[in-house]
């Protein structure tokens, strides 16, 4: 086991993938000389050369389009979008081309490409440096969506994303980049077992309430579980947002009879809505209380002095837990 930050763990995961396959190439703004705004690609251009780690023009639509072409010709491009909201200029390419090429070509074209982007708030930035756009991508058939929550899951999921034959939106919770954790660098994709990135992880078993979270909120929920008085919370890290590992969620909720879903993104038509609907459809008769959601509000991400009020925190998670325990 080695202790490292999440940013470092992604870097190590990229390294493993690049070592294993010379077709893995990186493309993005300021990722080469600078090593990326969050230094996730630090040192990779030096070690793998300018042909495998390329600085891109300011042209997100072009970056994604270029990755499509590379992927169609045998490469496994990993692109970086500098901040999540800069992906919107490329939205057309992702929704209309990346997501649909395989189907459109009757399965003959594969696009094994990874679109990495930091997402979420908590770093005192403004709206388009703090958003949580996952629902747009989860809603789009043809894309997979992964998000790590700690260094160990980052190290493995980035490799899994690159190994995948489908396009993957890879969302990195930026305020957790500097969180340290233990990483088993010897775990390989072949022997991950339950750590398989397309599965959810039970981070902390509990008997009373299933708390379902992903990305930046996993740590918040683990802290809430620690602080919860006389209630045993089971904290689930979804890891994969598309596909969703509903089996793990359903199994848990059937045991606990109570569910709280936590995400930073705004509530309406967010991922929590889908998960709540799935729970209602599949475990209705096991439920002891209505499912609760703890989310960002339905407003644009606020300026930095107000973000503490916007972001779900430990108190809001515990309030929702109280509410499901009352019923």
């Amino acid at each position, binding site marked *: 086991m080695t202790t490292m930050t999440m940013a470092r763990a992604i870097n190590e995961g990229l390294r493993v993938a690049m070592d294993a396959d010379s077709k893995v190439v990186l493309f993005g*703004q*300021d990722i080469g*000389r*600078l090593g990326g*705004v969050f230094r996730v690609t630090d040192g990779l251009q030096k070690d793998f050369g300018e042909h495998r780690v390329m*600085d*891109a*023009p*300011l*042209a*997100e*639509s*072009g970056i994604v389009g270029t990755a499509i072409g590379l992927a169609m010709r045998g490469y496994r491009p990993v692109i970086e979008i500098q901040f999540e*909201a*800069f992906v*919107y*200029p490329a939205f057309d390419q992702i929704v209309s081309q990346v997501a649909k090429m395989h189907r459109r070509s009757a399965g003959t074209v594969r696009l094994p490409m990874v679109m990495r982007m930091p997402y979420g708030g908590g770093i*005192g*930035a*403004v709206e*388009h440096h703090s958003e949580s756009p996952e629902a747009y991508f989860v809603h789009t058939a043809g894309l997979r969506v992964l998000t790590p929550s700690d260094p160990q899951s980052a190290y493995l999921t980035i490799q899994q994303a690159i190994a995948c034959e489908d396009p993957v939106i890879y969302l990195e919770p930026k305020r957790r980049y500097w969180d340290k954790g233990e990483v088993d660098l010897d775990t390989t994709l072949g022997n991950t077992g339950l750590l398989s990135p397309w599965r959810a992880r039970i981070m902390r078993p509990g008997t009373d309430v299933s708390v379902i979270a992903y990305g930046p909120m996993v740590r918040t929920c683990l802290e809430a579980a620690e602080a919860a008085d006389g209630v045993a919370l089971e904290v689930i890290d979804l890891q994969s947002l598309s596909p969703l590992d509903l089996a793990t969620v359903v199994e848990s909720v059937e045991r606990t009879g109570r569910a709280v879903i936590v995400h930073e993104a*705004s*509530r*309406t038509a967010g991922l929590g809505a889908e998960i709540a609907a799935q729970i209602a459809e599949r475990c209705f008769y096991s439920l002891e209380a209505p499912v609760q*959601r*703890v*989310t*960002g*509000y*339905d*407003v*644009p991400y*606020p*300026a*930095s*002095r*107000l973000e503490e*009020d*916007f972001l779900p925190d430990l108190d809001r998670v515990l309030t929702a837990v109280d509410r499901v325990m009352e019923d």
Partner: protein
Amino acid sequence: MSTPIDLTGVDRETALRLYRQVVRLRRFEDKVYQLFLKGELPGTVHQYQGQEAVAVGVCEALAADDWITSTHRPHGHAIAKGVSMRAAMAELYGKATGCCGGKGGSMHLGDPDVGMVPAIAIVAGGVSVVSGMGLAFKLQKSGQVAACFFGEGATNEGAFHEGLNFSAVQKLPIVYVCENNLYGASTAYHLTTLVPEVTERVKAYGIPAISVDGMDPVAVRAAMQQAREHAASGHGPMLIEAKTYRFAGHSRGDARKYRGREEEDTWKELDPITRMRDAILARDPADEQAITQIDAEIETELDDAVEFARQSPLPDATLAFTDVYADPFPIPSVVGERS
């Protein structure tokens, strides 16, 4: 050595005003930098030191009811267009008295009252918006002009090309102001762009372009006067490429490892403040006193702005829920969780 600034045809009052403006922008940014390091300002900042001559020269040539659009690096544009130091500083502090009521912050500085669209930090975002603004001015025959600031990096975004093509064919009253400071964040323009002269690139759209010394407010002002006249008289848009340099890093915590210190020193010799001062004093050494007085007034203005920002209240947290819609709208998650 740099070419001295040529004050021919510039009266004393104008010369001193240009000097005052470049110093105001510089001192504001220097103060912001200190406050940022002290931890008084949230978020990040993209600073304007070095590029002051561009904003000052452009805004000096604009009419009060002309508009500008701005970028992630908007502090200089805002102050040059008329946002007060108080309102700008308070916004950087996230205070309710800021020019956006504390809801914008560094990257969204602006104020419709002075003709500045709250800055758009999505690179090239303003280039699309300015087309609509120019179209409105044309349809209204208002005689107004919109100036659109952006960096050379923006010229590789699709939005840039869509915007220029449309405004050219529509002959819109727009002046594009490209601040070519050689780097988009850490990446040198020539590494991403085979034709690094922006004036060359826009020929493809039929837009006339002038290249100007972006470290000289007098030269920028003259170019802008010409461009504004062209745009306002129905001849369509024009582009100014101002060759300039940012002395600061791209944003907070940028160690500037991608460029040499020698290159930085060469550009610092072109510092618009020293050059403006030298030119004024070369013409009349007696203006030393006027310059000293201007410098002192700016310090007072700046101290007052910081004090004002510090004393101002933070916006109430519930303000995050206001101004989301213009007409009454029950915000679902608020109704849900709060009731």
